[in-house]
């Protein structure tokens, strides 16, 4: 049987990779993808705790659904901002946007 800490470790590794990508890449699209990776890792934590947690409860799955909704909204708004930025500045590199 797979233990709780195995799931938490996978989520931790994916979260740290996403954090590194969000802080170190210049391309705005890659930064968005990294933020999505971080949100996914958090969702994995929630769902792991619904099964193996100290107080196992199905509320974690509901919270994970809410997180997914907000992630989708964030991507929609972010990409609209990105297209407006590209129309005005002709670039989406983070170090050329002042």
């Amino acid at each position, binding site marked *: *049987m*797979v*233990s*709780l*800490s*195995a*799931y938490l*470790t*996978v989520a*931790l*590794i*994916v979260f*740290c*990779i*996403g*954090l*590194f990508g969000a*802080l*170190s*890449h*210049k*391309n705005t*699209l*890659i930064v968005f*993808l*990294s933020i*999505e*990776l971080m949100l*996914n890792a958090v*969702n*994995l934590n929630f*769902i*792991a705790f*619904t*099964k*193996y*947690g*100290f*107080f*196992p409860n*199905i*509320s974690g*799955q*509901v919270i*994970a*659904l809410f997180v997914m909704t907000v*992630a989708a*909204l964030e*991507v*929609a*708004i972010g*990409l*609209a901002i990105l*297209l*407006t930025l590209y*129309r005005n500045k*002709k*670039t*989406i*590199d983070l170090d050329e946007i002042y």
Partner: protein
Amino acid sequence: MNGEVIFFVLFSLGAIIGAVFVLVFRKAVYALLSAVLTFVSMSGLYILLTAEFVAGVQLLIYSGAITILMLFAIMLTKQKTGTTRKRMIRFQWPVIIPIVLLMIIIFYGIHKVTPPRKPVSYGKNNTEQIGELIFTQYMIPFEMISVLLLAALIGAIILAKKENT
């Protein structure tokens, strides 16, 4: 070694490898496709954790909607495809060292956490329980999410509209 362990190793390797290749690939389309590998592996992990409804929603929203939106954004903009030095910030050590420290500290906290109870399996009526909980205990957050969806829809349309029309 039973089937659960085998599938756990497969899906977690898929998730980690996909996350790494998001940062490694030079072209944004390839990075997006490896992010899809991560999303699909995550939904496999959800199925292992007996959260089938959330796994289906994950496949629909992440691998469907978000990927298509990102693909449109990649098509409509122009990216630089250079070497690593062009794509990433110049000094990476001030970023890497705190992240590795954070990883070590959290891993020290979680590496031998053992819950005192037996794992719960929600069985076939998993989706029914989620629905009941959404419409009783989480009623107000659910309605707030719908208002937020409407606001984001209007905001995205107004932001992406051309100024002179």
